[in-house]
């Protein structure tokens, strides 16, 4: 059943590409800058043979992963604290709700002013928007736990720190992982945005550069690669999550939080 779905899905992809190729070849399209998939493939081959391409992929991956790691660390710690302390929640939740809808793109000019064209600027743009899914899901995961867990921890005479580490954190792990996953795809998006608007390095800049140089085939090649990276990173995180938390990830996730 699942194999058949995959075959048909791939079939759909092939049909789409063949139609695209046909439309461009027959001169049916009126767009000046729509390359055929075969031309995109050829451009990708040429790019992959050169050296800069892999460096650009590496740069974007580095920025996204670094930003994601910082956001994950801060988000989990802050989320744990907020989830465990109703007092802290009362006195900061409204601040979080006020800051959360800030569109991440709007931080690009701030990052540029503060850090110039650098990796730090990219991180400034990546970390803040990717922080929220981790923080909110961790907090939600903890505060939704049954109060009985606290009684269990107390009856075992666990200290506050030990109880957090051994009882609360594992119980909220599934919800934390949901946040981490949302953050990861967001981190790739934000890295690309930061490179498009600011730091002239990496894949985001490459797309804009090829667009300005009127190289549509190369541009589509980069766009394809960026999409692929998003999918592969999601798969990798899902694979890790399935190993760490079997059973929790069979169900599809509600899609929350697109790019911010």
């Amino acid at each position, binding site marked *: 059943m699942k194999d058949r779905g995959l075959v048909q899905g791939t079939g759909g*992809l092939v049909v789409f590409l063949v139609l695209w190729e046909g439309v461009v070849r027959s001169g049916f399209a009126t767009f000046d800058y729509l390359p055929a998939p075969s031309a995109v493939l050829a451009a990708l081959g040429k790019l992959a043979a050169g050296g800069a391409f892999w460096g650009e992929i590496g740069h974007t991956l580095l920025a996204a992963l670094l930003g994601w790691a910082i956001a994950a660390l801060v988000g989990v710690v802050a989320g744990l604290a907020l989830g465990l302390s109703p007092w802290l*929640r009362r*006195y900061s939740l*409204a*601040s979080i709700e006020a800051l959360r809808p800030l569109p991440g793109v709007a931080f690009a000019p701030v990052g540029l002013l503060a850090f110039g064209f650098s990796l730090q600027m990219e991180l400034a743009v990546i970390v803040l928007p990717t922080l929220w899914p981790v923080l909110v899901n961790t907090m939600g995961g903890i505060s939704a736990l049954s109060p009985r867990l606290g009684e269990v921890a107390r009856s075992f005479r666990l200290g506050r720190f030990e109880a957090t580490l051994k009882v609360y954190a594992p119980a909220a792990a599934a919800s934390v992982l949901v946040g981490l996953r949302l953050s990861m795809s967001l981190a790739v998006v934000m890295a690309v945005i930061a490179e*498009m608007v600011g730091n002239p390095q990496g894949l985001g800049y490459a*797309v804009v550069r090829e667009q300005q140089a009127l190289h549509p085939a190369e541009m589509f090649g980069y*766009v394809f690669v960026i999409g692929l990276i998003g999918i592969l990173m999601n798969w990798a995180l899902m694979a890790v999550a399935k190993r760490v938390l079997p059973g929790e990830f069979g169900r599809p996730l509600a899609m929350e939080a697109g790019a911010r």
Partner: protein
Amino acid sequence: MKRGAMHLPPLRGLAPLLVGLAAWQILSSGPAPSFPPPSTWWRAVAQIAANGQLVPAIMETLWTFALGLALAAAFGFVAGLAIGAVPPLRRWSALLLEYFRALPPPVIVPVAVLMLGYVPSMKVSVIVFASVWPILLNVVSSVSRVGGGLIDVGRSMRLTRAEVLFKLLIPAVVPGLLLGVRVATPLAIVITLLIEMLTAMPGLGGLLIAGQRNFNSAQVFGMLVLVGLLGLTVNLLVNVAEAVVLRRWPPRGLAQD
């Protein structure tokens, strides 16, 4: 992730934010090139408003955003119904749709600039293309969850095809559509700002990037606050609209498969 209709956290939670801003204001002495004190933000925004640039920019951004989101919702709804109601079509297009959803939306901007040029319709098409996928996929999945059973119900009640569509299928899909729209809303705002920033077309994004290019940091921070308030307002409006619509078309209990 279920959110109550209108559930606002207590206002005293704003304290850390306000204390932080106050500390920023008090501690910054003299001119700070990158991090100007909050009082200067207000002056910078007031100056743009006095120039007569601010209101048109806000209107431009809001209008583009609303038009793009509305078109995305309409298109996603219709296409989602069609794809969801025809299982072979659903299976054949699954991978393609998954790829489009996974594609980071910002990369569509340069593609559209190259193919369509710097015209207002380019902005709207990019917003539609970027924000249609969560809507479409949510509609597809709610049709496929609810569809088979409902169509059988309709057949046993001897309803016509149009009646099945309008009386059974569409009301059952509305909650899925709303979830998609809620996910797409912040996405559409970001894309609107990003296009304006990248192409220097009129709008709030253009003002943001202009502030940075002129090293007018107070303007950048002031616009940041403004954009944040805009995001907050739009999110609240979407929540209110959702609550109203869900009261009219409550989620059906037929989803258990």
